[in-house]
């Protein structure tokens, strides 16, 4: 399958926007959450992006050569699994290790379970652990990020792979690696831009900071568009080359 340059730019742009949008859903707690004084996973966006993004790319790359929707679905499942495992183990540590209740300080009742939140928040903190709404939000974010990363990988692999390999139903290793590292880089750039937009920490789609998502998406769109144009330099045969 050969991807034409315009599809490639479009796929890198849309993929980058999906990653940047997905990060807004992930409950990033940062340093306060690491000492259980804020809701979310106790680390920064870059670490969560590294974990779930790389897993998503590996699962997406495992289906190289299959139909595009399978690659995207596989990427989404990989990212979702990784972020869910991270959140689950985080919750185990918060509940059984630290001994606090998963609770959000940003809403009075959990929008999904309708459980009261306010009276369980320790005074002086911003909540603890990952309540249901954060968990669901994080799963959605993982899915969007995985689809975005998978889309960039699929388009670049399709554009770069040598037709001899694809006709023989084999994987062109060097095209897969170039596409993989490029997709990972696009993933990281957008994840960090999104994390600058949310100022480091967010609880999920119920957090007031989530309203900043349009700005973040526009920034990710422009940055990914430039990265997409740069990806044209990788294509033999384009720009009057080989």
């Amino acid at each position, binding site marked *: 399958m050969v991807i034409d340059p315009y599809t490639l730019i479009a796929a890198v742009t849309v993929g980058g926007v999906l990653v940047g949008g997905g990060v807004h859903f992930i409950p990033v707690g940062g340093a306060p959450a690491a000492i259980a004084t804020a809701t979310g996973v106790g680390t920064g966006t870059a670490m969560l992006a590294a974990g779930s993004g790389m897993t998503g790319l590996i699962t997406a790359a495992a289906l190289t050569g299959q139909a595009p929707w399978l690659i995207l679905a596989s990427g989404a499942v990989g990212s979702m699994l990784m972020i869910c495992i991270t959140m689950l183990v985080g919750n185990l540590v918060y509940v059984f290790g630290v001994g606090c209740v998963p609770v959000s300080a940003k809403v009075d009742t959990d929008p999904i379970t309708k459980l009261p939140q306010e009276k369980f928040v320790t005074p002086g903190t911003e909540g603890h652990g990952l309540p249901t709404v954060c968990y669901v939000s994080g799963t959605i974010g993982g899915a969007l990020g995985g689809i975005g990363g998978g889309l960039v990988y699929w388009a670049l692999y399709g554009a770069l792979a040598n037709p001899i390999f694809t006709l023989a139903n084999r994987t062109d290793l060097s095209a897969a690696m170039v596409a993989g590292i490029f997709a990972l880089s696009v993933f990281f750039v957008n994840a960090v831009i999104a994390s600058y937009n949310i100022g*480091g920490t967010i609880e999920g789609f119920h957090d007031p900071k989530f309203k900043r998502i349009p700005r973040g998406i526009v920034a990710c769109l422009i940055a990914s568009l430039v990265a997409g144009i740069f990806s044209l330099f990788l294509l033999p045969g384009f720009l009057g080359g080989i």
Partner: protein
Amino acid sequence: MSVAAGGPGGVAISPAKILGLGLLGLILIYTTPFLGPVFGPLLAAIGAVLAIIWGADTIRRVASYGLGTGVPSIGYMSLAIAIVGSIAGIAGASVLKLDPLLGPIFGFILAVVLGAIVAVLCKTLLKMKIPILIRGTAELSGAAALSVIGFSAAIAGTFSFAPIIVGGTLYLGIEQAVISTGFIALLFILNTMAIQHPFNACLGPDEDQVRTLKLSVATGFIAMAIVGLLSVYTSKAWWLVTLIGAIAWFIAIREFIDASKESAASVKWTGLWPKHEEE
């Protein structure tokens, strides 16, 4: 990052001198194809270490204003930009059938441009309040790109994207030696750590530029030693790169520990925890 939100502390070495050091790194990387299979990779690796020092100093200047996301995030972002730029640049020089020698400078420029665009977006759209954000991110992306290109050239022995034969010796291109082997993913994390760790470890009220830079020299050279090990199959100079990297790391980390002890009020070895709880 509230401890370090007021801009950089005292500056003993001016940004211009550090910038010069980084550009010296670019020149060293450029000598690679002319010095043969032993000294070429060595100078490429040393050039990458100089770029890492440049990057670490730039991160010190930018992150000292407080990014809100921690120091590592901008490190990861700069390396991601660097990899997009340097792969596009090096591959672009091959795809456009230009001289492979144009690859590194092309990659460097693409990374600086992408870094500047991202910084402009952060400043205008996302309203980040860091005065030196645009210059800092552009410099940081360029330094990160040089570190990736330098280490890649040290592994492959060439800037060419595709394999080439020079004087009867087959040089695997960057694509075969660095990307297909997956080393590029390792360089991503390795260089991120080397660039962001010094300031991330040293930041605080009594942060000192010279001490931070001593740590960046140590992280840069230990990355160089690892790059030497990666190039066992592709480079005749792998042992030299590893050996010089390891010796230089040892000297730098000793200097750093001495500097830390000197600035400390007192240093005590706490010993192991007592067998019985003391009353």
